[in-house]
């Protein structure tokens, strides 16, 4: 197929015209903000009081337990390293939380009794207690995080065109573009769980793409005990584990919603199905119903879209998107009258 060559440039809009547009847009913005018509940016997930309490205690404990070394990495990791302790507090949702320390190429971080947050470029690592992590690289050549022991939570800012952010735990490699996830290591065994976005996990010659809410390996195991680590669990059992995550089937409604939103352009039918799977209950149901109705409208399925828009108003008359739903319905009614 051919493209028209030497098309003339874009006819510029006058400065006056731009000023008119700008002032009208911001006047409208002011009105909408006053009425609360804009949905919030990435609503935070609910956090249980128990989890918050554990988080506070863990963070308080972390103040005295960090050892940060900028010296070069020793030739070998301690063979009898104790296994990871579970992460007590997950990092807050985006943006990456403020970290108390910044790591550079060659930094080695070892924690003892509590987790600690460390900035790596514009990303943040939450390193659990009893963990050892070394940081290599920089923002222009890409970051490589080596997890020698324990568990690390990663909150990675979108990488865009920059080299990827990679976490290695033994033979397992996790490559990420921009997301939140955790990698745990006990002896030679590693596990990955994704909270937001998606990551590629490579291990034993196989690779799998994990999305929000999914974990790897698929079969969930209890946290490894010191006895397991001392016994030196072999990597063979890890390789035998199936790489297709069973927990994908019970991905969180937020994860489903976000995946549906991403799929809209590429596969709208799958996106619609995913919005349906979010269900009619839970904190993401209203967003999913609105997303479904809007997508049906874009696909030209006006009858179905109208039904869902009306359903939205019946269920959520004061919902975050209620004003938009009313406007869309009004427009559709206008179109019908004409």
């Amino acid at each position: 197929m051919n493209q028209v060559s030497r098309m003339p440039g874009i006819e510029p809009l006058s400065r006056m015209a731009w000023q008119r547009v700008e002032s009208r847009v911001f006047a409208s913005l002011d009105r909408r903000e006053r009425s609360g018509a804009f949905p919030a940016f990435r609503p935070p997930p609910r956090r249980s009081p128990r989890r918050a309490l554990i988080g506070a205690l863990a963070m308080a404990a972390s103040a005295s337990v960090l050892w940060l070394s900028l010296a070069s990495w020793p030739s070998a990791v301690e063979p009898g390293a104790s296994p990871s302790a579970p992460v007590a507090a997950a990092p807050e949702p985006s943006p990456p939380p403020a970290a108390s320390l910044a790591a550079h190429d060659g930094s080695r971080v070892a924690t003892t009794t509590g987790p600690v947050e460390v900035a790596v470029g514009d990303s943040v690592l939450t390193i659990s207690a009893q963990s050892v992590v070394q940081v290599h690289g920089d923002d222009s050549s890409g970051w490589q995080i080596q997890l020698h022991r324990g568990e690390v939570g990663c909150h990675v800012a979108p990488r865009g065109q920059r080299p990827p952010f990679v976490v290695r735990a033994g033979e397992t490699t996790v490559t990420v573009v921009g997301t939140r996830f955790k990698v745990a290591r006990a002896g030679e065994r590693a596990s990955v769980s994704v909270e937001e976005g998606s990551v590629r996990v490579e291990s034993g010659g196989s690779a799998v793409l994990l999305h929000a809410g999914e974990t790897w390996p698929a079969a969930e195991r209890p946290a490894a005990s010191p006895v397991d680590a001392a016994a030196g669990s072999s990597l063979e059992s890890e390789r035998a584990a199936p790489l297709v995550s069973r927990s994908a089937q019970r991905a969180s409604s937020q994860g489903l919603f976000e995946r549906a939103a991403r799929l809209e352009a590429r596969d709208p039918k799958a996106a619609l199905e995913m919005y349906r799977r979010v269900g009619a209950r839970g904190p993401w149901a209203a967003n999913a119903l609105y997303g479904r109705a809007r997508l049906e409208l874009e696909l030209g399925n006006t009858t179905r879209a109208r039904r869902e828009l009306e359903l939205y108003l019946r269920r959520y008359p004061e919902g975050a998107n209620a004003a938009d739903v009313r406007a869309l319905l009004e427009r559709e009614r206008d179109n019908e009258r004409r």
Partner: protein
Amino acid sequence: MIPSLARTEYVTDWELARRAADGERPAQEQLFRRLKTAVHATLYRVLGSNRHMEDLLQECFIEVFRSLASYRGEAKLTTWADRIAVRVAFHYLKRQSSHEPREAEAEPPSLRLVGSPEDDAWHREGVARVYAALGKLKPEYRIAFALFALDGRSIEEVATITGVSLVAAKSRISRGRHKLWAIARKDDVLLTYLVERVEGEPG
């Protein structure tokens, strides 16, 4: 020292979107300035010189601010805004075709081109005829064709921006192109203009 998020353009996009969505007016103004050229260019390529351009730009930006909560930083902000601009253009074309079928939407372009006055006049006439012919196409074909053939986007970009599969994008571009050439065969001026600027007719 904790590094700032604003190290690269990409991260800045995401951070800017977050701040704008959180209601920070300076961020909203910066976002408007950053996107205005791209949004205007996309609308212009799809719709041509249009007397409703200001209203359409306003509609686009209100939609941009309304939808910021859904921006995840997975694409450039301009690409994301292009999708909104194309959606606004699509609804506009739909409205035009159903409500005002005889209304001439396009205005003669007033742009100045580098070249002799004759060349300029010839370009203006040619462009006006291209957009008049595009006005006879279905909105989805027109948008896909304009993005590909007039704006120089790849088929992948057209698919992303219009929210359809690669196959569908290719099909829409092809249908738009065939229809345009069918119209051009009845319009000598348009035909000459297209022949000058397109490498061969579709088969």
